[in-house]
């Protein structure tokens, strides 16, 4: 079931078209990575879905509610975290969460328990009585995520949640997203750096110049790389001979010697499907080469991203 859907979503700022008839579907329970270069239209899409911005044309629904006519219902089911956000610096951490919980109509009696649970979830229990301005950027980011979770929303709309975080904070954020997915939340997360969210996403959509250029599951997107497959062959000896043998093989497009820290292996680009790889391995062993390892290199999604986008707006 689609929990987020946009149809012909268009947003124009004067003569500039930020979104151009965007049609997007996000299934319930998925972690949908919304990737694109800076200025591609990610934030505009998210702001429309969060009921903050009116589209010029088209329509969007979240959990079946229209973002144009049922704004309050949409706000009830979403937790939104913008790309740039501020915190009230004269507030303590617990006061900050208590304030937003109250803004979500959560009764005063339950807010104390909820605040503690949220702080525990984002690992900030030890900072509950500190002023918000004393928190690090990563902690503020986690606090903002806890704020977005105060009313137990079905859908999380997170705009560049890992931006500006140090490596440790990024890993913590990634773990948190995994935890939230395990809790059954649908997460619509954007980033202009694919590697940042690649590991947590189940689905991905690539946007450029306001248009969705590709969308699908992670497996689908990786499949797109498979017109040309790369295998790493490790041998105990006869490296030069194997290199020569592979160079003459009809299925092999290119071979190179790759030196790692401790060993040297062969990297071959092979045309064909899984059966072609099986045949190649069989023939290699049949030719008497001492094959220690034969593994396919997983294509990085970054390659798909680079292939599909042309950097029009970045």
């Amino acid at each position, binding site marked *: 079931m689609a929990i987020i859907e946009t149809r012909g979503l268009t947003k124009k700022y004067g003569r500039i078209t930020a979104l151009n008839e965007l049609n997007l579907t996000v299934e319930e329970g998925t972690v949908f990575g919304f990737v694109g270069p800076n200025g591609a239209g990610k934030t505009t899409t998210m702001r429309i879905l969060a009921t903050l*911005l009116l589209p010029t044309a088209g329509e969007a629904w979240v959990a079946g509610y229209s973002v144009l006519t049922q704004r309050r219902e949409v706000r009830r089911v979403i937790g939104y975290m913008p790309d740039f956000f501020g915190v009230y610096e004269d507030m303590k951490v617990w006061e900050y969460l208590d304030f937003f919980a*109250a803004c*979500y109509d959560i009764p005063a009696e339950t807010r104390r328990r909820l605040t503690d649970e949220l702080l525990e979830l984002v690992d900030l229990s030890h900072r509950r009585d500190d002023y918000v301005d004393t928190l690090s950027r990563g902690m503020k980011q986690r606090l903002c995520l806890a704020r977005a979770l105060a009313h137990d929303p079905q859908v999380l709309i997170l705009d560049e949640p890992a931006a500006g975080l140090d490596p440790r904070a990024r890993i913590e954020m990634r773990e948190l997203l995994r935890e939230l997915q395990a809790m059954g939340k649908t997460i619509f997360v954007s980033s202009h750096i694919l590697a940042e969210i690649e590991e947590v996403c189940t689905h991905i959509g690539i946007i450029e110049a306001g248009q969705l250029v590709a969308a699908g599951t992670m497996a689908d997107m990786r499949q797109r790389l498979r017109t040309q497959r790369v295998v790493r062959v490790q041998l105990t000896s006869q490296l030069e001979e194997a290199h020569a043998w592979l160079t003459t093989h009809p299925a092999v497009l290119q071979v190179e010697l790759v030196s790692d820290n401790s060993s040297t292996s062969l990297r071959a680009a092979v045309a064909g499907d899984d059966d072609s790889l099986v045949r190649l391995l069989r023939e290699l062993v049949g030719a008497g080469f001492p094959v220690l390892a034969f593994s396919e290199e997983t294509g990085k999604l970054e390659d798909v991203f680079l292939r599909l986008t042309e950097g029009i707006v970045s």
Partner: protein
Amino acid sequence: MEDALQTKSRRLLGGNLNPVLVKELRGRMRGARAFTVLTVHLLLLSCFTLFIYYAHTESTDPPGTWTAMSELGKIIFASVVLIEIFAVTFVTPAFTAGAICGERERQTYALLRTTLLPARKLVYGKLLPTLTYMSLLILAALPLKGLAFVMGGVTVEEFILVLVFLAVTTLFFATLGLFFSSLVRTTRASTVLSNVTALLLTVGLPVLMLILVALTAPNVTSSWLTDDSSLSWRSEVILACLVVFVASLSPLSTAVATKLILEDNAIFYFWYELTASSTPIQRIPLPSPWIIYVVLWTATAFILLAITIARVRRPER
């Protein structure tokens, strides 16, 4: 202990009240700022009152008579009220001018607008703490005004009237600041607009009125008032109404005009004696400027409030 305090503060302050109101009140009263402003405000007013007291006592011979004390009471009362009018006019919009655009600048506006908090609650939550704090400043200065009351020369009615007048002025200038805050994107622009408007209304309008009266009065007296036609007395009535209306637009001119009318013990209305020679009526009743002021600016305040709420409710285009 800490937990118990938090639960208590949640129950007392938080409860299910407007969360923005609670946050703003907490933020405003936290730390020494609120109390410092209040103390400085009262100290300045007290010093000013003392100065008037000694200056008047020194210049009156003999001092301490009933008439002299009554006169002193009137002067102290008028001076304190005048200072309060200026304070309310310029301090109130300064408090609210950053209410909405300050949230935008702090990048917390989007966070608030995606919650279930209705626009009207956000606006009221910003307005009420300002009204509360300004009321605190006005009420804290009551003993100084009360001093004048004890000395004589000031009636209970005048006392109540001044409180109503200050309350309406506070409400109007607070909503004016809020309105500009929802209209522009920066606190600086909103503050400038609010203060310029306040200055125009308080000082600019009375000056403009004086200039207009000075320019038109000789013509009016020479042409209308000496004319025997039936139009002249009607024109005089219209002119009198217009003067009272324009005088009621500014807090300063309203206060001065009301004070003059109060000298004749007229609180709600006064009689205007027509001077036109062919008039069928000798005098007409006109409302006291403070009544027009209260009605006009209360209505305007609610209109500004409604516009502000509508602006906050509407998503960006």
